[in-house]
């Protein structure tokens, strides 16, 4: 029997853990409980001790710290080598990475080197006893993800491999800070440089700190290609302003230049779950639905009564947005008087 350790790779941006890492720790904590095991955070970087301690607040029992000035910025080669060595040496049962650019760069490399199963972009993880091809597997990790452009939801298992790896979408797991939790164990792992670490060198970095935070918005008004022109899209902004909402768009709206990419909702954009999501002129391609279908209430406005978006909306309005929105605004303002 292999170990009962659940690992979370803690991804650092400007020296701070990404939100997704806390989300994964919270999920990992539950998974570790379900298999009667322990949760470990793996922090590779510089000045990692305080971050390691912070991970205890999210359920980690132990933090593996690999600390060196050379590891201040993420680079594929040293990070993959360090992570691979750790996985080989300790054989965790489950390893989770954020499905971020770093996670999607690192995880496949580590999985390949350790010949582990890796499932990309999971939206849910569960532990379950599984019967597969007439064999019983206790406490497997069910790795649930949309596939085929979101047309199917697949449950992937890694039955015969000691290590089960997955990357998990940002924003789909809830992070949960635990109160009254004792400290865990800080374990420092020595780092020794290797020739291959320097094959790729960073020349310069540009960080565009996004002022847009769709994930935090409680109301989102999103426009699609159905609005036809950039000018018409202005109505979406007016509508959002009146409702105190954030403006978002579908991939088609981004591709058409109606709205900048950082406001894209969907599989290749941001995953959101606001209290209210109003989809205007969005047909509801699966890519889009994957990013918003968890919204508490969905209102769809579309001229096409057969648009797939109506299939997942709670309230459907068949009509021309250019007429419906001004009317909605007028009625809404009157109600608030």
């Amino acid at each position, binding site marked *: 029997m292999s170990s009962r350790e659940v690992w979370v790779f803690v991804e650092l941006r400007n020296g701070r853990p990404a939100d997704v890492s806390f989300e994964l720790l919270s999920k990992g904590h539950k998974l570790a409980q379900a298999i009667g095991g322990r949760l470990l955070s793996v922090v590779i970087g510089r000045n990692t001790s305080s971050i390691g301690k912070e991970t205890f607040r999210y359920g980690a029992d132990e933090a593996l710290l690999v600390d060196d000035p050379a590891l201040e910025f993420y680079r594929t080669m040293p990070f993959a080598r360090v992570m691979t060595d750790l996985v080989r040496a300790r054989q965790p049962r489950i390893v989770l990475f954020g499905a971020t650019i770093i996670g999607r760069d690192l995880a496949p490399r580590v999985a390949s080197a350790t010949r582990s199963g890796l499932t990309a972009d999971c939206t849910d993880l569960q532990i379950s006893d599984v019967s597969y091809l007439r064999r019983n597997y206790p406490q497997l990790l069910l790795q649930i993800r949309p*596939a085929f452009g979101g047309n199917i939801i697949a449950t992937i298992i890694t039955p015969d491999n000691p290590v089960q790896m997955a990357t998990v979408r940002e924003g789909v797991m809830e992070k949960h800070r635990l109160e009254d939790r004792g400290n865990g164990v800080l374990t420092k792992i020595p780092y020794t440089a290797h020739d291959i670490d320097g094959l790729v060198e*960073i020349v310069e970095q540009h960080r565009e700190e996004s002022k847009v935070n769709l994930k935090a918005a409680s109301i989102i008004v999103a426009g699609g290609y159905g609005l036809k022109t950039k000018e018409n899209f202005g109505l979406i902004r007016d509508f959002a302003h009146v409702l105190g909402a954030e403006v978002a768009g579908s991939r088609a709206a981004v591709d058409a230049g109606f709205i900048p990419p950082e406001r894209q909702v969907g599989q290749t954009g941001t995953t959101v779950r606001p209290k209210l999501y109003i989809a205007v002129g969005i047909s509801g391609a699966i890519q889009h639905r994957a990013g918003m279908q968890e919204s508490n209430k969905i209102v769809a406005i579309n001229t096409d009564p057969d648009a797939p978006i109506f299939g997942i909306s709670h309230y459907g309005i068949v009509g021309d947005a250019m007429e419906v929105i001004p009317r909605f605004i007028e009625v809404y303002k009157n109600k608030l008087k």
Partner: protein
Amino acid sequence: MISSIVLVKQVPDTANITGNVMQEDGTVNRAKLPAVLNHEDRVALELALQVKDQYGGAVAAVSMGPPRASDILRECLYMGADSAYLVTDRKFAGADTLATSYVLSEAIRKIGPFDLVFAGRQAIDGDTAQVGPQTAEKLGIPQITYVDAILGVKNRVLTARHRIDGGSEVVTCKLPALLTVLKDAAEPRPFKARRVMAFKGAKSLLELEKMAEGNSLLYIDKLVHEFQSRSMFIPTLTMDDLQLDPARCGVQGSPTKVYKVESVVLTSDGRQSVPPTKEGLGSLIDQLLADHILG
């Protein structure tokens, strides 16, 4: 001179789902989707061709897939690839990314020395983005993922810009290396009419075998020779050709298994239709205000 290998995949066109592939039960009829060259792979090929235009060298396109993947290899030839290889074998079926990257890395080794391997960031059917990095790992070379521009190659060091979380980064990398490419990295060139005319008759070994059906083995050898001499042959690489370990191919070599698949069903159950009138919108707003969703 830079010699490049581009990994390309034939995918069902999930990006353009129209009403006629939707089934009664609200699911997508995948069999009805057209099979296309994955767009980001096409961009990867364009980038490889631009490198060749600037520094000289050659570009080979490689696809692992069923026999009909030779369709997209011909497209690569139309765009400007110097050669194309079809990696195919029944025993590759059901491969996950680990098994796929094993086969592809061995195919790349077989095809010969290279400076750069290009791939699209991800394929639209699986969206995993794993095969590129896993192939790089198996080849023992570095990778740069999410590349949106190649800034130059000098003294066998490549400079490229790639996307990182919350920004972008310029990196240098010693060759050989593998790059995965974003769709914004380049605008794929259209097919050249001259090349379409020249290569539309290019055939893979399997297609030649079909042509030669019923004839002797000698005849197929002659056909292959003839197509080769006219640069019209798409070589086929099988498990035996690559001397692969069967335990690392296909379903057997894939640690991840699909346990369950559920089609996403679109139903309008529970949906409330709101008439686009003042009254209709008014009662919707009342409802949302009462639920503390608005206001």
